[in-house]
């Protein structure tokens, strides 16, 4: 897209874009570190994730303030307006992603006593990889604003849902095998849910990017394959 006649406006939009990329990078790192800390019982790393969340919170606030000042000053129209509103929404999604990473990090201490069984650890790591790939790719799409790629990412959330459901089932099995596993498994269940939500936020971001690029909402329901809500139900 061509530049603005007022070059200062371009600078403001660039600033917002840069801050979103920074937030995305940090949120991604936090989530990866949290899972790493969880499976390795690394409480120092967990502590770092917890303290990093403040940086993310501040970044969101700064983006918000800058966006509001820009709207007031420039009275943006059309694609500019969509971009700034989209930036606000993406910043909020990334802030939530940070919170989810932080929540996982907080659980490291609780599961430290028993440790995380190797098999479950692999499942969590795999789920986390899937979510973080979504997040990473959606941030790349944010940089190049491709509606097509945003739509493609939106379609892929299904995979994470399916993985989450299988992990849920596995955790149930462990708990049934030995009640002493319940504490750890319950925490891990929350962790898995948190990770699955990270994928949801990535999907939200993909939808926002689609809107920024086209001015329309993506058509159709999000593909979902999360059947954990009915898992264990007694079927007559």
């Amino acid at each position: 897209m061509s530049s603005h006649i007022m070059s200062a406006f371009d600078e403001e939009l660039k600033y917002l874009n840069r801050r979103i990329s920074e937030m995305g990078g940090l949120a991604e790192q936090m989530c990866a570190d949290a899972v790493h800390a969880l499976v390795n019982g690394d409480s120092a790393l967990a502590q770092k994730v917890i303290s990093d969340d403040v940086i993310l919170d501040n970044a969101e606030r700064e983006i918000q303030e800058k966006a509001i000042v820009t709207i007031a000053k420039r009275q943006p129209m059309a694609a500019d307006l969509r971009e700034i509103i989209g930036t606000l929404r993406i910043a909020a999604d990334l802030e939530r992603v940070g919170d989810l990473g932080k929540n996982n990090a907080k659980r490291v201490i609780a599961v430290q006593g028993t440790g995380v069984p190797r098999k479950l650890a692999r499942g969590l790591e795999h789920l986390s990889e899937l979510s973080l790939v979504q997040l990473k790719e959606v941030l790349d799409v944010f940089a190049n604003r491709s509606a097509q790629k945003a739509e493609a990412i939106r379609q892929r959330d299904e995979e994470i849902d399916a993985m989450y459901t299988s992990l849920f089932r596995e955790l149930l099995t462990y708990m049934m095998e030995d009640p002493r596993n319940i504490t750890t498994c319950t925490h891990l269940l929350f962790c898995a849910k948190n990770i699955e939500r990270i994928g949801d936020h990535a999907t939200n971001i993909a939808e926002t990017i689609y809107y920024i690029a086209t001015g329309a909402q993506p058509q159709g329901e999000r593909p979902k394959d999360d059947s954990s809500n009915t898992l264990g139900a007694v079927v007559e």
Partner: protein
Amino acid sequence: MNMMTEAAVEKALDQRMNDLSYKMIGKDVSVYYGEKRALFDVNLNVRQNTVTALIGPSGCGKSTFLRTLNRMNDTIDNCRVTGRITLDGDDIYDPSIDVVELRARVGMVFQKPNPFPKSIYENISYGPRIHGLARSKADMDQIVEASLQRAGLWNEVKDRLQESGTGLSGGQQQRLCIARAIAVSPEVILMDEPCSALDPIATAKVEELIHELRSNYTIVIVTHSMQQAARVSQRTAMFHLGQLVEENDTDKMFTNPDDQRTQDYIMGRFG
């Protein structure tokens, strides 16, 4: 079979209603100033009881088009208009049309407030008097009060109707001009950048007035302020280099316009 016919009739009626809701229809309108062509086959319809905003960069033809709607271009010597413009279905360029009568039906408000150097009362009463709209002094008083009320000026000037119109502030003068325009009960009001000489408060008052007038009149407004077009209009038409680039619902125009040139213009980007 019967159902089909009924549906077909209904559809035809809808179509007819749609046609009727156009107060003015411009078809293949071109304007030449001597050799220079200022408008190129513009097709633009003005909807009844709707505010239509005309936007575009300087020299794009938006004011030229506006002025064709009540034949203000007639006053320019070498100006020639081709195409067809109708008001309620009647060709306004037909030789049988009385231009004075036309301008009473299609009133105009200009960029710079231009009250007559007469009293506030006379500014309003002049039009109704020459058009013979008042039978008595009481009638005229009533028209003057109603016009000033509608223009939101009555409370500010009711105690000094005999003072000169030029003694009012800029914003008040512009609302006086709007009151003067509506005093002859026009059907369409054309506004050529009515707020460009006003401060934000006076602008807001005029915009509020435009918003209220919409229920009784059809309004076409030329404005350089995109925000103003977005605030007051329901339809927006974008002109560029003498051509109509895009006409759309205002809400769509300012969030997701169809044409790249509209996009660049409203976002203040290099074309």
